[in-house]
């Protein structure tokens, strides 16, 4: 689904990604685990086509994304949930949902979105940012599902949410996976990561330092937590 080969990226003079190579197979949920500042968010931005200062190969569905602009990547089925959730304050909840172009067989019609997230229907005329943090996260996920994305790039969807809401996000991601959507997820919550993901890449100082499956993460949880500084 997604192949990244020797991807490097810079902010000005500072190099934030160093020859990252990783694969996200179709239908899997893969997490990027690492401390703040390890380069995880930049990696997602490179895949989305939002970071210009980069070198390396990003392949999607067998083709080179190269210099493809972000809006074409979105049209090709890549969906982004940014770390701040990216809810528009000047748009209502419903406008937030309907603003992006939707297409493809994966696209959720608005009725299905409202069925899955009744709270969004209830508040559809509210300005997007009047929702609570958890509701905004639901909205960000629902929005990208409505577009019919086949590859979701989720930047810390559980950050700052209560355990109950984290559980809800988990069940949404599992449901999304069952529909054949591939997910690349940034996650600091190791326990949560093992409940939704198939595989994990450990990122440190812009490099992939390890690739683990669920059982390895569980076995080495203490060591990994210490490594993450938690």
């Amino acid at each position, binding site marked *: 689904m997604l192949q990244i080969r020797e991807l490097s990226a810079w902010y000005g003079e500072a190099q934030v990604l160093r020859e990252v190579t990783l694969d996200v197979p179709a239908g899997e949920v893969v997490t990027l685990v690492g401390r703040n500042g390890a380069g995880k968010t930049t990696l997602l931005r490179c895949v989305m*086509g939002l970071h*210009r200062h980069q070198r390396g190969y990003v392949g999607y569905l067998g083709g080179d994304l190269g210099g493809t602009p*972000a809006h074409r990547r*979105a049209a090709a089925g890549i969906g982004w949930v940014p770390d701040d959730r990216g809810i528009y304050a*000047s*748009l209502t909840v419903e406008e937030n949902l309907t603003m*992006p172009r939707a297409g493809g067989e994966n696209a959720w019609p608005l009725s299905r979105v409202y069925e899955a997230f009744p709270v969004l229907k209830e508040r559809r005329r509210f300005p997007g940012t009047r929702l609570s943090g958890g509701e905004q996260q639901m909205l960000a996920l629902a929005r990208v599902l409505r577009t019919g994305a086949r590859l979701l790039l989720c930047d810390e969807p559980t950050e700052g949410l209560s355990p109950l809401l984290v559980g809800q996000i988990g069940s949404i991601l599992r449901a999304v996976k069952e529909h054949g959507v591939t997910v690349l997820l940034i996650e600091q919550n190791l326990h949560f990561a093992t409940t939704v993901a198939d595989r994990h890449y450990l990122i440190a100082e812009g490099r992939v330092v390890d690739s683990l499956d669920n059982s390895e993460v569980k076995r080495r949880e203490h060591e990994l937590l210490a490594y993450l500084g938690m």
Partner: protein
Amino acid sequence: MANFVQQCFNGLVSGAFLALLALGLSVIFGMLGVVNFAHGAFYMLGAFGAYVLLTNAGVNFWLALAAVPVALAVFGCLLERAFIHRLAALDPLYNFLLTFGIALVLQDLVKREYGVTSRPYPPPAELNHPIDLGLFNYPGYQVFVLAASAAACAAVWYLLTRTRVGVVVRAATERPELTRALGINVGAWVTPVFGFGAGLAGLAGVLAAPMRAVNPLMGADLIITVFAVVVIGGLGSIVGSVVAGFGIGVATALCNLYVPALSQTLVFVFMAAVLLWRPAGLFGREEARV
């Protein structure tokens, strides 16, 4: 009392110009991150367009009111395609310098042709008489300006809040990068939006011609106040710029009545206060843009 209400009216009329200019400036800023210095020059070209059409071709005010904004919108689109677009990927400061340069070039071209003395432009005959508003008589043309600009702001408001175009423009104004990631080709929307902003400035210019002195510097004089209005309303906030435009117009007019010495400075006092109290502007969002 009559005096007070009349001064409020004067304020609304001058606020109407501020609102029309601030609206275009704010939308362009939101989508491009560019403070468009040429905006004042578009306003000046609007007034001169009406003047030139009248003196050289005998085209009346009403035709000019329809044709000049359209011509400026086309001109704005061409400028965006030819120059501004090319610098879009760079630091916004480059485009800031570019639009400043464009403003100076346009001003000096007009100056070369027409000098710096103000040109008279007669109000259309139909409106060149006072209208009885009950408490006082008010110049018919000013009443028309107020109605026309309120209608223009309402039309823009409708376009922005009730249509698909408006949803996309609001999204792209608030967060251009995210909007690209959600599948919208923001770059392709910038040209018509820039043209639209130029057209609004042109409309304000034509409306101003019979009321204000038509001269090459009229835009440069006004644009500083408009910048302050946009900052007060919140950079990139569409509602903010309209509310702040009319608000500053009325506040300045009332100040003129009671504390005339302060009236020229008032807008900057407001701006300083807003920046201290709500740095993002009255209707702006708190987080800084990268």
